[in-house]
């Protein structure tokens, strides 16, 4: 599965990366990312997640071939 990180998240993760573990849900993916970089936990807790450009909840089930976007809090305007 492909993981895209945006804005401040790119200080913690690559902008785009192939995620090798196989999380079954978004919640599990989030946990894996937190373990991968513990200093990102606080910001990950504020993030929304999207699968193939549609926002999903933490219990969203994953197959393994999705494009996941990790969306930090908006700061437009």
């Amino acid at each position, binding site marked *: 599965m492909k993981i*895209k990180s945006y*804005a*401040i998240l790119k200080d913690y993760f690559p902008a785009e990366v192939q995620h090798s573990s196989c999380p079954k849900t978004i919640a599990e993916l989030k946990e894996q990312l937190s373990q991968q970089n513990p200093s990102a936990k606080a910001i990950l807790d504020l993030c929304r997640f999207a699968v193939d450009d549609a926002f999903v909840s933490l219990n969203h089930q994953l197959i393994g071939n999705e494009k996941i976007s990790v969306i930090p809090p*908006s*700061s*437009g*305007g």
Partner: protein
Amino acid sequence: MEYILTEKIDIAKLIADFEDDSAGAVVIFNGTVRKRSLGKEVSHLFYEAAEEMANKMMEEIIQEAKEKWDLSSVIAFHSIGEVAIGESAVFVLTSSPHRKEAYESNRYIIEKIKHELPLWKCEHFVDGEKKWGGNCSCQEITGDANVHIYDK
């Protein structure tokens, strides 16, 4: 329709070209880049977006506004990439036969853009530092990501 623009938003042209004989009340919000932020001198801003998602969400926000209020027209744009001091980062025009509807819908759209659009500001300061907006920069002053400076 593209709502997320890499080219400069030309406010004067948008307004000169805008025609709506049936409206009566036209409210415009122009969000520009300030020369100072967090007590420091700003060099410029850089905006990044999850472009497709942001574009789709803008479409949805505009549709919502049209359902909630009696609007003759809605125009909304957000810039991405580098935006210079004084330039427009976000532009929202709402027109309606009734001023109340034009004001309320305009503010609704701006709040949605600021709080929900997958789009991020990075402030570049004259001293060489840069800083990504998280939620907004208000928390640095209020100490709480959910309390904005204008709420205090």
